[in-house]
């Protein structure tokens, strides 16, 4: 069937009838504008968050393998909700020497954590996390101070268990305020330690306490504070990331000599990353879904105005039908108008959403993808068509006689 009038004629007349009423067009599209811009904004925040997280993991090192007690990941690669039950497991120095013996080219870093009251000058802080580790931890760039902020402890200090400490930047401020903490004393459970460095500010870390709130000391100090020889987790740095997959299996084999299967987890940053990405994706989809509801509300707004428009233009419709417009031509005309209304809303929404996410980018990473733009525009066009159907059908079914008689 030949289309009469041609699509270009229809588009032309629709655009003009919409532009005759600019104020109303804008108000009608407002719902779609808000819906589309919030969808764009939320997906861009989700995407930004993902790339931010993977950047963070890049700095963590792709050649790092983590050994933790408990089964951290469930079968699907998500975080295991029942992991706590295994957290009572801990490693000890024998594991470290076993691993060192087996993997001589790797750096094995034990990590032990305790929590204690810390005093300095006349300030006291409760429940500060104390991390006990070796000189290697600092060598690998974790929480390493800038040269002007002191230094990490040496291999010798690490081996002897010297009474030295590196403060996280928050702890340093909390304890010493404006006073330079370097060379000053802190007292933890009666032990006096000398501050030799202040760790660089790191910002918050995912899934835990901000690292800026930690105090780093040689491993033996934590052991004497806690009164046991436990090692809570182990990091293994391979010479390059290519060894990581193979090494994970080997490490697991070594540890299985002493521990039950599934009571500990050997994982690398990519696993952690994909799990976190999973969570972010679910969150993004959920939030975007909520934003998409406003698109539906916007669609109802368009339907409302189109119904009013059809009533207002009853005589025009009657005239068009009298002079030869067949029902489908009227149907298509009003459908196109509804679609243009929502399309305009979509375009404005995309612009606003993109501008908004650029603004937010100053404080928080965002990333507008072409995909989300296409999706948002497509959805808004579909909303226009779906919610345009009822008014357009109403228009196409008007009898020309009734319509021309309409006052």
């Amino acid at each position, binding site marked *: 069937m030949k289309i009469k*009038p041609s699509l270009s004629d229809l588009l032309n007349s629709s655009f003009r009838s919409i532009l005759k009423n600019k104020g109303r067009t804008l108000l009608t599209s407002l719902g779609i504008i808000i819906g589309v811009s919030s969808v764009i904004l939320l997906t861009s925040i989700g995407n930004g968050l993902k790339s931010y997280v993977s950047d963070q993991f890049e700095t963590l090192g792709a050649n790092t393998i983590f050994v933790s007690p408990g089964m951290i990941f469930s079968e699907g690669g998500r975080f295991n909700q029942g992991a706590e039950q295994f957290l009572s497991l801990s490693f000890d120095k024998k594991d470290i020497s076993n691993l060192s013996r087996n993997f001589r080219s790797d750096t094995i870093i034990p990590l032990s954590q305790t929590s204690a009251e810390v005093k300095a000058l006349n300030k006291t802080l409760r429940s500060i996390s104390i991390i006990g580790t070796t000189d290697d931890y600092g060598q690998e760039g974790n929480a390493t101070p800038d040269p002007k902020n002191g230094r990490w402890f040496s291999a010798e200090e690490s081996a002897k268990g010297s009474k030295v400490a590196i403060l996280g930047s928050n702890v340093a401020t909390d304890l010493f305020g404006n006073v330079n903490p370097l060379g000053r004393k802190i007292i933890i459970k009666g032990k006096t330690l000398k501050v030799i460095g202040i760790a660089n500010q790191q910002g918050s870390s995912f899934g835990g306490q901000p690292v800026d709130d930690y105090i780093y000391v040689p491993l033996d100090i934590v052991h004497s504070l806690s009164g046991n020889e436990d090692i809570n987790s182990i990091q293994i740095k391979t010479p390059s990331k290519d060894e990581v997959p193979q090494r994970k299996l080997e490490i697991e084999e070594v540890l299985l000599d002493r521990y039950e299967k599934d009571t500990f987890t050997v994982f690398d940053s990519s696993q952690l990353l994909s799990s976190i990405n999973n969570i972010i994706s679910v969150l993004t989809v959920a939030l975007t879904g909520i934003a998409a509801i406003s698109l539906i509300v916007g669609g109802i707004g368009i339907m409302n105005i189109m119904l009013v428009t059809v009533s207002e233009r009853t*005589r025009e419709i009657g005239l*068009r039908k009298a002079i*030869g417009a067949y029902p489908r031509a009227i149907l298509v005309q009003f459908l196109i108008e509804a679609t243009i209304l929502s399309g305009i809303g979509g375009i404005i929404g995309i612009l606003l959403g993109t501008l908004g996410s650029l603004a937010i980018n100053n404080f928080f990473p965002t990333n507008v993808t072409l995909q989300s733009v296409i999706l948002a525009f497509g959805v808004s066009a579909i909303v226009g068509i779906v919610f345009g159907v009822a008014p357009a059908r109403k228009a196409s079914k008007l009898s020309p006689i009734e319509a*021309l008689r309409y006052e």
Partner: protein
Amino acid sequence: MKKSSSNNKSPRVVLNLKNIVKTYVSGNTSFNALDDVDVQIKEGEFVSITGPSGSGKSTLMHIIGLLDLPTSGQVILEDRDISRLKEHELAQIRNVTLGFVFQQFNLLPKTSALENVLLPLLYSDIDKTLHKQKGIDMLTKVGLLDKLKNTPAQLSGGQQQRVAIARALINNPKIILADEPTGNLDSRSGKEVMKFFHYLHEKEGRTIVLVTHDMELANQAKRKIVIRDGKIYSQ
């Protein structure tokens, strides 16, 4: 253009209405707005239809205008029975066969005179490249060449009705159906419009059906159909 002169020897019947009955049902009462009506419109005729309100005049006009179909009876347009056609087929026929002139002009607001005149062509098969020139020709014919770009609000009533007549003529229709065309005009503009209908009838041999309750106007037609209580009273 097929034109027949006004002194035609054997005028062809353009529209033939046979035994037309139009029944309106409301609840369990029914009412025959048209009751066994026969009307023939011949090519080149200037016919008026008059009758008091409620006589069935409007119903007859709708059926002549192919805007409505009878409950029973036949509508034969140029030897083709169209009484059982579908809505979109009727729309197509209206587009090429009929030119409407309304009391209310029914021009699209905020739309130029030229575009108003071109409106029927949107729904026709006529080559798009010819549209604009046709529209200009028609507006020239009704004396509004200098008002092409004016919107209805910028035109007087008489000018608006002339735009509407140009719109009715643009598809070169077989029948021009005018429903109280002077009803909304002052008497001077009304006379001008009537003069133009006479011109179309006499000089171009157009077939014109004029629906009015104004006897003075009706008497200007060459033939009068008077309808009362759904029946033809005289013709």
